[in-house]
């Protein structure tokens, strides 16, 4: 998608790809035949610029024919270059950062009010934690005992202008979330077993909301993209595309 349309943001799409793979294969209770089923789990991607991974996951899951992804970012396509709720299986449009977590709190609150056990998952980027609106939610969610809210941080350590630690260092992130009264986990966001075990550990026994800090690598899986700021923006050339596909296979 990114290569064909000369789009951006492949680095951040790859850093969260393993997280989505585990969620969509093994965790989320969703049905492509009935994408608005009441009791489904809700997954909200807040870092909407990384939508290509989400579209791929939804296509592979059967929400639409993966061939439709050939229209990505083309004239008239529903596959916008930031997540669009017009795409089957997408819960919310996202492009402006710091929006999906407050909405996720509303969804999780509705589940509490209706005494339903479905879960709300929200995936944010590390740089996105600069947005104050996220911290309004991070303060409130424990107060509301949103036990079925699971926040995932794709901690790939690089944001738009450079390394997170050089722009606004968010460390100590684990301790911050603990201090804000969240049930906090920190794992390797590319280790499928760790991802699976941690998602399964996020059950209802504790009334706190959950956060999983996933240490990830921007551009994961493609050697020349890994940990490179450039791949927040750059689109692969033909040569780079061929090389990337070779490495992924």
């Amino acid at each position, binding site marked *: 998608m990114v290569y064909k349309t000369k789009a951006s943001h492949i680095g951040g799409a790859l850093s969260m790809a393993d997280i989505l793979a585990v969620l969509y294969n093994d965790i989320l209770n969703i049905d492509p035949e009935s994408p608005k089923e009441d009791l489904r789990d809700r997954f909200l991607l807040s870092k909407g610029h990384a939508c290509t991974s989400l579209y791929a996951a939804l296509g592979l899951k059967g929400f639409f024919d993966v061939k439709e992804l050939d229209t990505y970012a083309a004239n008239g396509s529903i596959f916008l270059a930031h997540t669009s709720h017009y795409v089957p299986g997408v819960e919310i449009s996202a492009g402006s950062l710091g929006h999906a977590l407050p909405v996720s709190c*509303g969804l999780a609150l*509705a589940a509490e*009010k209706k005494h339903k056990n479905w879960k709300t998952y929200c995936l944010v980027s590390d740089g996105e934690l600069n947005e104050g609106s996220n911290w*309004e939610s991070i*303060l*409130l969610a424990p107060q509301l005992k949103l036990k079925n809210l699971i926040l995932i941080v794709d901690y790939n350590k690089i944001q738009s202008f450079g390394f997170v630690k050089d722009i606004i260092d968010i460390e100590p992130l684990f301790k911050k979330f603990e201090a804000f009264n969240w049930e906090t986990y920190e794992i390797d966001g590319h280790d499928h077993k760790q991802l699976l075990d941690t998602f399964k550990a996020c059950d209802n026994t504790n009334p706190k909301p959950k956060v999983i800090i996933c240490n990830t690598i921007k551009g994961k899986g493609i050697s020349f993209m890994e940990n490179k700021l450039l791949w927040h923006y750059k689109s692969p050339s033909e040569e780079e595309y061929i090389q990337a596909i070779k490495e992924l296979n």
Partner: protein
Amino acid sequence: MRTAFVKELIEQGKKNDKIFLLVADLGFSVVEPFAELFPERFLNVGIAEQNMAGIATGLAMEGYNVYIYSIGNFPTLRCMEQIRYDICYHNVSVKIIAVGGGYAYASLGASHHATEEIGMLRTIPNLTVCAPGDPDEMRAITRFSSTYAGPCYIRIGKAGEPEVHKKYSKIVEQIKPGDILNVIDGSDVAVFSSGAMLEYSATYISQNKLKASLYSFPFVKPIDLSQLLSLFKKYKKIITIEEHQAHCGFGSAILELMNDLKENGQLDQAPAVKRIAINNAFYSKSGTQNYLRTIAGLEFKLSDFES
């Protein structure tokens, strides 16, 4: 008007268990009756309006009709992007309630003067923009909003506004988006009043024994085009009055619609329009609401009524 709002919301809340009220730590001694009757459908989210707008969006996505309540600029300008992108782009059932429209909280200063929000909000697709003029209109708008599925903005004055329609023996019950309400029947000149300028307008016309008509516009957007067209044809001169900046406000909306009706051939002769609105300025003097209105020039002159 805020008391009329809460009382009507309670009445609707008794019939409709989807009505949910969020406040951002404001509404003391106003919203408590709703909170006491419906504790499961009331939440104080704290002083965090962006989060409030997002939570409202989430609740609305799950079937609630969510009212978010705060003062003037806080549930509007403070979370404008959440209103545009979360609430209006997803077109969910969230009703944004701002108390203290215009200079209602006059002496509290510019932070509490809501004098630009209509201009910002009326450009946003899917959003209905309401500014009721008296408690009767407030009740009717609240009833309408309680079953309306899309997003709405409702600008409320404060407490204690008089019943204007009743004074002129008019009945306001059912109201639909865009309705224009006649208050006083007159001749060549018509006053188009937006929001809480209604009482001033009615009193000015009555006390000066003017032969002008008075219409209240509880909706800034939409405005019913056929009703508006008939008024454009009926009057030679129109005076618009609003407690808002002149740019992009209610009077601007009237001029835009008049131009479009003329341009598409439905209106041959356009009436003259005098706009009374705030002239691109902040006012940083202390005083009452009437004082602020006066120094901002929100007043008629007798000469305005010469057609």
